[in-house]
């Protein structure tokens, strides 16, 4: 089509429509050409087929939607025996008990060796009564996880040991198995969003 100067004002509607249609189809053709160039370049440069996967291996990853199994087709609750290695002490720990282990291992929980050491250190300097008072307040206000099934046992033990604490001197108090203390002093009520 030869190019010529045209004035649009003299044209009627059908001619204008036809012009618009021409321009539109030119634009569409140009756009398609652009896409062709992209594909051509990708093929020539060698990256067009790069992301092809083979159908067979993809079948392994199909989602399963059946009751009683997860999306991989696995039965629930078969992961009891998983283990991991603690990055702090390098011991092999059961995965489902890793968090409480790490808490003690890093010395972050209230019943851990760090705090016990601190108690021992400061008991040599201060008198016993003030120290145990501080510890009492510390324990009462602590928030904690709760282990649902162990609730009942804990309450009675808690009362027992709490009164025990007030009479036993601090040094022998620490001598009691830390592990037992840990189980006993988990509080039951004051956890925001605590988990089982």
């Amino acid at each position, binding site marked *: *089509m*030869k*190019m010529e100067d045209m004035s649009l004002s003299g044209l009627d509607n059908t001619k204008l429509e036809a012009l618009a249609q021409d321009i539109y189809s*030119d634009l569409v053709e*140009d756009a398609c*050409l*652009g896409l062709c*160039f992209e594909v051509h*370049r990708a093929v*020539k*440069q*060698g*990256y067009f087929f*790069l*992301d*092809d*996967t083979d159908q067979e*291996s*993809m079948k*392994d*990853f*199909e*989602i399963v*939607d059946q009751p009683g199994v*997860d*999306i*991989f087709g*696995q039965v*629930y*609750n078969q*992961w009891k025996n*998983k283990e*991991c290695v603690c*990055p*702090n002490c390098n011991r092999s720990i059961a*995965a*489902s*008990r*890793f*968090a*409480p282990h*790490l*808490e003690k291992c*890093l010395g*972050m*929980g*209230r019943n*851990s060796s760090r705090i016990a050491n601190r108690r021992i250190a400061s008991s040599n300097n201060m008198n016993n009564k003030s120290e145990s008072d501080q510890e009492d307040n510390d324990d009462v206000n*602590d*928030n*904690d*996880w*709760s282990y649902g099934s162990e609730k009942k046992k804990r309450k009675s033990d808690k009362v027992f040991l709490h009164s025990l604490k007030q009479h036993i001197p601090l040094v022998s108090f620490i001598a009691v198995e830390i592990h037992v203390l840990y189980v006993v002093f988990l509080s039951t009520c*004051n*956890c*925001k*969003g*605590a*988990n*089982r």
Partner: protein
Amino acid sequence: MSPAGCPHVNGFKVDNWKQNLRVIYQCFVWSGSAETRKRKKEEGGDPQPVALSRPLQAKSCICHMCGAHLNRLHSCLSCVFFGCFTKKHIHEHAKNKRHNLAIDLLYGGIYCFVCQDYIYDKDMEQIAKEEQRKAWKLQGVGEKYSTWEPTKRELELLRHNPKRRKITTNCTIGLRGLINLGNTCFMNCIVQALTHTPLLRDFFLSDRHKCEMQSNSCLVCEMSQLFQEFYSGHRSPHIPFRLLHLVWTHARHLAGYEQQDAHEFLIAALDVLHRHCKDDNGKKANNPNNCNCIIDQIFTGGLQSDVTCQVCHGVSTTIDPFWDISLDLPGSSTPFWPLSPGGDGSTLNGESHLSGATTLTDCLRRFTRPEHLGSSAKIKCSGCHSYQESTKQLTMKKLPIVACFHLKRFEHSAKLRRKIPTYVSFPLELDMTPFMASSKESRMNGQYQQSVDVFNNDNKYSLFAVVNHQGTLESGHYTTFIRQHKDQWFKCDDAVITKASIKDVLDSEGYLLFYHKQFLEYE
């Protein structure tokens, strides 16, 4: 020479070929200026390249044989000749004159008549790219987005490793369970939300983190490793013990017997990631407001707080960054209704709170309502130079790419500790426009009905993750719904991943709601 190039360009690449090629691109392919620029007269020196105006360009680009301007015009690279491609006029010229190369005037591709194909020469493409960038800049169009292309080395690697994993619908890639390490579902639920945040996933899977931390304790590296685990295709649940260790090491306040709340974990994790990311930004700026790490790019928004003096009506404005929005719920000890002081609030946006369940929009309206601060909390007004009563209002100044809404279900007031189980309905698609600072201005001018601008996509969000807490304050359990593809949702319950329906998601109680911007703008 790359496999896509050809040896016939060597005849062309002599003398001042680069400059000549540039002229062709500037004048006939990508013209820069919208107006005619004055031509400089050649005075014996090298001809100056001049950008032609587009009307002028259009008029001069016609086939020298038939006068047509369509038909895929090509320009000869060795002389001044334009010819149609479809009518083969340029082919004739090439044969007659033995000029082997021509350039397509529409897209700038180089055609070799000996190879009889378009060829892609690295040097010539470089020039083409530069000229296009210059022209677009002149026209104010901005930069052209170029999709990723593998380098030669990457192509080699990809060819040697043909195994591919593609995330398609109905595919488990990207989904994986997480072992509960002992009441760590608060962490697992957040990990599921983060690993399914599209931008974060793309960042880590394209290996963008370049670690500069000396020790092994970079949380961002661990995050990167986590994404590898999730997209590995492994079926057995992952054991996130290293992640727990790192987070507790870097956020001591979280560890041990402290409150194990998913929301607190999210904020602490984002904080540590943000701190560790700063190290690989190049600029070791200590200014928290100036960080451009991926965490800030995705999660940081700006909250505007306007305090208006009731006497002189002067407004004092501050803007604070935020990673999440914590929303009060009806049923807490602070009153929820009415939404605005003294007014019935419910007529804003045409909704009525009497019609049923509280919605997320209700909570957001309450969050952005003007609040009378009362006579006991007078603010020093810089206009009045004295303490005056005032109203305060919060609005969104800058929306983050991922907006996290925290429904404050756990009440810890002096009198009681409890969980507020009020059902709050939340939408799949959310428009944040009514809560923007800019909308507030129009509301203050008396326009109460927000006219919805259907072409403004800036503030539209899509739900992609919901963290739920089941149970009571004393003992509960966290789970997450995540969206893998549009309308395909999954429930993540520690080690067990199952398919979920949209109805399951929308009927759930909701504790943390994650929304992703629908449209991303390039800066």
